[in-house]
């Protein structure tokens, strides 16, 4: 007992005073605090410059615009937590959305929304399994494998499926877009709403949270992400855990693809590509370390809301929207510095 806690609080490097160390430990234990704080700070800043920002319509817009990025980000967060990295998710989303939309139009125009969503989920899941199996089989870094599969999935889509826009999407998808969860009227009389498909994102967040926190596989994901060799020694089947994480990311990417078609009312096979780094940025700002073993649903959602907000509010405070990427870059740097400081100050080794 004497040896246990006397040095536990003094830290390793002695660089932090007890106060800052307690703060660092608190932040480490509450990973959503940093992105949530940044989000509130950004809102406060924008509201100070342009008080018109404070209206319910902006909240509704933010929620609606977060759905696709948010679904991708939840999947990436699970893969990062398991020690992997996935950059193929946009290609999975594009392939799944285009194949399914085309199929429904050509062969089952009356298919209702629920089976379309399930098909997106299953299709994305299968593509994710390919990622996971390849990572295990080839024992190559996940980044390399998923760069390869990103090209493969996209190449397959554009070569064998098609390159033309699908403008008249199935009736059920169009109707799903019109289905409204909440609506209101802005100060300028404009009608604003949160579409019902937001619930798909909400459900994905809840299920991901339950999976990570209430099941054994959730702990297995974190164990594998931090120290795969130790996890294996303790009896975790790390190969299976990796496949599971990539499958989870693939399934959510498939859903994201379907909802992208729903919200845009068109299926463009060239869409989604190029958004990989924005999504990964949201996840990293949300506290998932690129080195694996950390990552939370709350942090990821906060990161997604922050990035989406930056994309839409700059124009409202008179900053040209081309500055969006620079602002996001600044947030990523801030997050990198902050989390590195937390690790040092909390005396982690």
């Amino acid at each position, binding site marked *: 007992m004497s040896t246990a806690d006397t040095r536990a609080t003094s830290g390793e490097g002695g660089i932090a005073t007890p106060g800052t160390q307690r703060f660092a430990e608190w932040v480490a234990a509450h990973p959503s605090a940093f992105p949530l704080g940044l989000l509130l700070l950004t809102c406060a800043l924008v509201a100070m410059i342009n008080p018109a920002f404070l209206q319910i319509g902006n909240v509704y817009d933010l929620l609606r615009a977060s759905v696709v990025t948010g679904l991708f980000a939840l999947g990436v967060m699970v893969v990062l937590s398991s020690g992997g990295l996935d950059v193929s998710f946009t290609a999975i989303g594009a392939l799944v959305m285009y194949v399914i939309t085309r199929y429904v139009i050509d062969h089952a125009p009356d298919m209702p929304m629920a089976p379309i969503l399930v098909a997106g989920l299953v299709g994305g899941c299968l593509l994710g399994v390919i990622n996971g199996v390849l990572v295990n089989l080839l024992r190559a870094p996940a980044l390399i494998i998923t760069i390869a599969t990103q090209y493969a999935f996209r190449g397959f889509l554009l070569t064998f499926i098609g390159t033309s826009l699908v403008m008249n999407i199935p009736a059920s998808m169009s109707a799903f877009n019109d289905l409204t969860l909440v609506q209101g009227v802005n100060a300028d009389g404009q009608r604003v709403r949160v579409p019902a498909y937001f619930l798909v994102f909400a459900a994905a967040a809840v299920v991901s949270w339950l999976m990570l926190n209430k*099941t054994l596989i959730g702990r297995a994901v974190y164990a594998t992400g931090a120290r795969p060799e130790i996890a294996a020694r303790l009896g975790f089947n790390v190969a299976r855990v990796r496949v599971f994480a990539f499958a989870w990311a693939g399934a959510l990417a498939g859903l994201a693809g379907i909802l992208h078609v729903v919200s845009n009312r068109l299926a463009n096979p060239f869409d989604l590509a190029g958004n990989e780094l924005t999504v990964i940025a949201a996840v990293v700002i949300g506290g998932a370390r690129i080195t694996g073993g950390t990552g939370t649903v709350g942090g990821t959602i906060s990161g997604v809301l922050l990035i989406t907000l930056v994309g839409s509010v700059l124009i409202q405070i008179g900053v040209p929207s081309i500055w969006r990427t620079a602002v996001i870059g600044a947030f990523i740097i801030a997050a990198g510095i902050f989390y590195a400081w937390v690790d040092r100050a909390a005396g982690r080794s």
Partner: protein
Amino acid sequence: MPRDTPAEVFLETRALTRRFGGVQALRGVDLSLRSGGLYHLLGENGCGKSTLIKIISGAQPATSGEVLINGTPRPTLDPIAAQDAGIETVYQDFSLLPNLTVAENVALTRQLVATRGRLLARLDWGQMRALARDALRVVGLPGDAAFLGRSVDQLPIATRQLIAIARAVAARARLVIMDEPTTALTRREVAHLIRVIRDLQADGTALLFVTHKLEEAKEIGGTGIVMRDGAFVAELDMQTADLGHVAELMTNRRLDQSRYRAEAHKPDADAPPRLTVRGLARAGSYDDIAFDLAPGEILGITGLLDSGRNELALGLAGLDPPQAGTVTLDGAPVRLSGTAEAVAAGIAYVPEDRLEEGLFLEKSITDNVTTAVLGRLRGALGVISPTRARALARRMVKQLRIVAPDVGAPVSSLSGGNQQRVLIGRWLAREPRVLILHGPTVGVDVGSKDTIFRIIQAQAEAGMSVIIVSDDIPELIQNCDRIAVMQDGRLAQVFDGATAEPQMLYAAIGGIFDATEVPA
């Protein structure tokens, strides 16, 4: 007394062999461990100890032979089956998951074993916390919610070790295997560890230590199992064993247990000092450190893990620069503001953790030995001459008696002792004026220790000043002219190496470790 009343055999191996490609790591090992027994698995690096415990714990299959648990043959032993049977292994890294909490690290594997590795199962947090709380109490750690929820990477080494043992307690382990359990611990922590282990033993748990520290094994007592070259050599009672004889069994050669430091080479006390340190301080680590080091002198620095000895070593190496004080090297002041300054001044530092802080494991011996002297190996156009690099590496391999097929071989292919010699070789190649060795023989076997000690002595005799920072008291007494003991960040006492007795040093360190503290 468990040893006097033979309990039933818990684990048995019969004619166990293991082959890796062309290498025969185990050549037919018969082992028999009784419930409540205390065993020390002794042997040099590469003798097959690690392979043996990996097979027993289900991490690796045997090539041939049998493992029997409670008399039943277990041909397919995986980690979950081994844990289910009550075998818990505490590896040197403690097998802890740094990003998870204390409670999860103690109790998570129980849930995994309960579901037989099936991962799509609900976590029972309530049961996990209750199990963790009870197990932590057994090893003397707090079981409150705050401690249960702490992340393991914020805890000191000794606490992590106890958490690993708590996991074995939570598993109601029948056999706990500990791989070099005391390497990273101070004496006081070792004493606490041994008390915990005695309690487990009294409950009928068998304990198997894998260790290099013969003196410690003797103090703890129990049965010594000696392995050499993949085979079982001898079984003996550690309490009555002659350590020289044990070392001979392990290495198959006669080793000198006496002092390496020859009195004839005592440095000239009147010569101007090589290194003068005055008022060296770093807040929270050490304060008011002052000493002189003569040319060719070997100074030992020891103390508890939290005495500031490690921080002082890092400070002198410029890795963790001191905040106040002066350091003078051969009359010229040295600014220890970084490693580059220390190295330029002629101070070389061989770190404690050779794998993480020192060696480039995938690189060749040549690359590793020459990194600190690349400037000297430049040929025309500033390109490194591979011929000169190899020649230097060959000279070091010969001088340090490194056992390797070729200087192009990756360092990862060498044994621990040889790796350590490569690291020492890197700094000797620079011909430093002061060599700081931090735990020079941590994880190194008896035979390699002997070689490393001879290298240190040879360098000192050639005029190099050496500082050894270590918690291995016999090693300091065998090698040093003077031994300084640190306490609470200050140099508390300095002993003459020729007359110092281990008990005096242990008392000065403050971590008294004697028979009264460890009920036999």
